[in-house]
């Protein structure tokens, strides 16, 4: 029998189970390597996205410097939302000292929390081709639009400064969007990143260095980017442009998005140093296991697991996406 006097030791035991399980789960969350993870205690995070301002000019001696104005940027607001569950240690479990069952419940729920967070990140990418709301992994309807009111991957991202637009929707050949993963489409879109110009038409190269794919495209991604010669070609041409340039990030959660749509052909290129400016996640509280403060009348000791986080979007140029449909 796990008696009331054993409550303190059970608490320590379950904290250890949780910490071990969470450590393993965090190591598998690919989304935390793609999204910039931040910790802030503010409920609402408002960010002004400033990119491509036309203020640096030549100044004469003694002349006032031109002033930068924040009206040149869009803003984006995200609010912390809470997610949680109860993990009851019932009278039956305590009476028969079912440590395996108690252990499994904590392990399973903590593991699930991190998988849910990871899926919520992957769904941002796989739902990034439409501005329509989508149902997230928690069953809530969430907005898919970024600071410019458009989908994450759009051919005509706009800015408040002028009418110039840019695309982060993969293109190959010219005029065809959403190409399937191929050497040609990789080369073309890496080049488009290098020749990217900001709203004031200044070239600010984006060095896409990571190819992010679902497991379904893993083998193809390796063959395209890690061979010395151009794959499946009778010519002896070098593949140096791709080999060594791209890291491959296999994200299991990209294979099927929440709702069951097969998204295994989707693929993404991002600049690992700057993708955090496009995609962020802010935690007010990372997943935590809390012991009950008092024993309930139903004899259940209810542990709770909860967390607060939000998904935040910024300037979307540092990641490009394709559904692979064409």
């Amino acid at each position, binding site marked *: 029998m796990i008696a009331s006097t054993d409550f303190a030791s059970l608490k320590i035991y379950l904290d250890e189970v949780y910490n071990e399980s969470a450590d393993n789960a965090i190591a598998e969350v690919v989304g935390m390597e793609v999204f910039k993870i931040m910790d802030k205690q503010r409920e609402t995070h408002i960010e002004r996205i400033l990119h491509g301002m036309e203020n640096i000019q030549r100044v004469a001696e003694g002349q006032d410097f031109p002033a930068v104005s924040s009206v040149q940027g*869009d803003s984006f607001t995200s609010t912390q939302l809470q997610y949680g569950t109860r993990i009851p240690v019932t009278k039956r479990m305590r009476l028969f000292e079912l440590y395996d069952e108690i252990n499994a419940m904590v392990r399973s729920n903590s593991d699930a929390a991190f998988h849910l967070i990871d899926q919520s990140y992957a769904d941002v990418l796989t739902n990034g081709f439409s501005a329509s709301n989508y149902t997230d992994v928690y069953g809530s309807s969430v*907005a898919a639009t970024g600071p410019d009111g458009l*989908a994450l991957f759009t051919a*005509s991202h706009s800015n408040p400064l002028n009418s110039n637009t840019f695309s982060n929707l993969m293109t190959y050949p010219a005029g065809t969007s959403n190409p399937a993963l191929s050497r040609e489409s990789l080369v073309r879109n890496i080049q488009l990143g290098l020749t990217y110009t900001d709203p004031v038409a200044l070239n600010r190269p984006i060095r896409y260095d990571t190819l992010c794919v679902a497991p379904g495209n893993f083998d193809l991604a390796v063959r395209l980017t890690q061979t010395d010669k151009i794959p499946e070609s009778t010519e002896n041409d070098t593949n140096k442009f791709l080999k060594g340039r791209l890291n491959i990030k296999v994200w299991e959660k990209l294979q099927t998005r929440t709702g069951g749509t097969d998204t295994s052909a989707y693929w993404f290129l991002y600049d690992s140093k700057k993708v955090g400016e496009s995609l962020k996640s802010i935690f007010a509280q990372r997943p935590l296991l809390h012991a009950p403060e008092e024993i309930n009348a139903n004899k259940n000791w209810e542990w709770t697991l909860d967390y607060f986080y939000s998904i935040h979007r910024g300037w979307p140029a540092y990641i490009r996406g394709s559904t692979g449909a064409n």
Partner: protein
Amino acid sequence: MAIGPDWGNLVASGRAKSLGVSWSEEELHALHEFKIPLEYVRGGCLTIEAYEKATKGDVKNQYMKKDDLLEKVKELGIEISEGAMPSRADLMLMIEEKSRQQKVAVEAA
């Protein structure tokens, strides 16, 4: 506090179709490639042909901004009582009715 982009700002600057509604790819194409004015794209003109058709005769009223409709009502000599706040649809009806009356008068003469 609204979550997401500043829709009010985006709509006011013509970068969103309406509050919470983004431009579709087709609409963006019409705006940026065909340079069709946004009021016409909001009204459903996505091709040059549709735009040209919409800019002829009274059809174009339905694509005009409310301020422009008010201006046109004044030009046509339609009087609006002080303090009245006619809707966009009311203004379009007033203009259509006045145009119809003018046509009848021309034909009778």
